[in-house]
């Protein structure tokens, strides 16, 4: 079982956190800090498996991570998962993000955190691997995004129209047009 999935950058700022076991919020932040501390110490050419995180679960748990440019992708798993398999899964997840965001970079993860969660939900569910075929995952994410967009277009429109009209600054139409004061100069036409 996957206990948690963390994505953070080279300075430890979290970009995505997902726990499949309940932890109180301050505990979650402590785990993120500890994980960052353990993972950032590692050289780039050592193996991608780490033992020794004490907070998240003790001896049965390993951290399996991959470092891509400015981001660390860390999966905390127990012994029921294949270590090499999880390493491949991280790759699948990142490639899926790449397809969904078109050359994904850290900024995409920052500004579209919700979308990243929805993509992750198609890969891992309840701490278990759900789907590993990248094309299937991308297709399903696309369909759901389309559904959300189409809903936003139709049913949100009346609400938006109402609030738009309320906020519109309509110019005041004068009610009484007083033409009494207008001096209309009638040109004197020469008699012909």
């Amino acid at each position, binding site marked *: 079982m996957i206990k948690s999935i963390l994505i953070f950058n080279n300075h430890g700022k979290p970009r995505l956190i997902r726990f499949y076991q309940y932890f109180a919020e301050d505990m979650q932040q402590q785990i993120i800090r500890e994980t960052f501390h353990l993972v950032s110490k590692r050289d780039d050419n050592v*193996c991608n498996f780490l033992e020794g995180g004490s907070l998240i679960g003790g001896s049965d748990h390993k951290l399996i991570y991959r470092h891509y440019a400015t981001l660390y992708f860390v999966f905390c798993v127990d012994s029921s998962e294949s*270590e090499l398999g999880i390493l491949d899964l991280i790759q699948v997840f990142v490639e899926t993000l790449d397809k969904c965001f078109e050359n994904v970079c850290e900024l995409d993860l920052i500004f579209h955190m919700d979308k990243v969660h929805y993509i992750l939900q198609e890969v891992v569910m309840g701490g278990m691997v759900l789907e590993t075929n990248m094309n299937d995952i991308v297709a399903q994410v696309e369909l759901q995004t389309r559904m959300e967009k189409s809903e936003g277009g139709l049913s949100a429109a009346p609400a938006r129209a109402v609030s738009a009209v309320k906020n519109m600054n309509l110019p005041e139409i004068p009610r009484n047009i007083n033409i009494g004061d207008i001096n209309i100069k009638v040109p004197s036409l020469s008699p012909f």
Partner: protein
Amino acid sequence: MSPSVPLQEMIRAIRSARTQCEERGVIQRECAAIRAQFRQADNGGRSHNLAKLLYVHMLGYPAHFGQMECVRMIASPRYSEKRVGYLGAMMLLDEKQDASLLITNSIKNDLSHSNQYVQSLALCTLACMGSAEMCRDLAPEIDRLLRASNSYIKKKAALCAVHIVRKVHELGELFAPAARTLLTEKNHGVLHGAVVLIIELCERNPETLERFRKTVPDLVQIMKGLVLSGYSPEHDVAGISDPFLQVRILRLLRILGHNNEGASDAMNDLLAQVATNTDSTKTVGNAVLYETVLTVLDIKSESGLRVLAVNILGRFLLNNDRNIRYIAMTSLQKIVGTDHNAVQRHRGTIVDCLKDQDASVKRRALELSLALVSATNVRSMMKELLIFLSSCPQELKSHAASGIFNAAER
């Protein structure tokens, strides 16, 4: 206008804060605004506010005031609101909180929704945070979905069933027949979910394990199809057909063949085939090979096959890729008790790994070296271990010292 624009504006504002203090200020203001919005009856941007709250929660700020909003969003008829509501529930709620009880009804209704994506949201949430009561209540519905729905829902229902069985062990009996039928599916996602479910059922209940032993021939067939089939573009990863599924099936075979002659015999040929046919030049191939080796060593396999397996591990030990060396040592550790002599043959390489730069590799090498100390090699091993002790990283020192002590006593 994209639904996430307000979220992005807030993120931009937070990021432009130059100090921690400034950031806290921005977030406090945003949270106050969000709180006010939650109190309003209905506005066009409900889902945006909850999304903002989840972002703030990720940065470590309190977000518990969003719990009721999650409940409200989940009950909304709109997909965009349900989606964020369920995500919020999974991130902010757990069964110990009262608010989680309130979503049981929504989940129940959404499980039979006409839209499969709404069904999938409910399944996902149930699998993440379903309490024992929720699981008991909804198990029959999950069983129904396991039997009669499309593959997208079936694979999610299978994993949901795993969660239910973990929470309420007795319900394993309920899912066993459906799990058995799922093995005939063609869709790999469903097959994968089915195998995970069967593994869970077998690990919990020895009687179920007995019954599932009968599926060994079917599993062997499926594996044969994956290993020997020609190139299949939809499942191919670096030349191997669906390695994730292969690894999962191998694990199930391991459980079924453990301590059982009949089942082990039925899978001998297959394991030999996988071990010889799998391409080990890429990580995915190695993942499958590794799982095969573990299975061979854990069941009642023929001695020839065992030798093949240990030799594969020996090859792994010499691999340039540190990950592979680490993995090899982990599995050698598991068999050092039963196949001691076979592992002894690789003692030289293992001792060399003590000098590796990588702390994880060092740790594995230490464990293994300590286990390999015997009457015949004690002098040379002690020499190596003492050299190791003088230069090893701080966190391993005490473990190494006590290990050396224990070995010396033997």
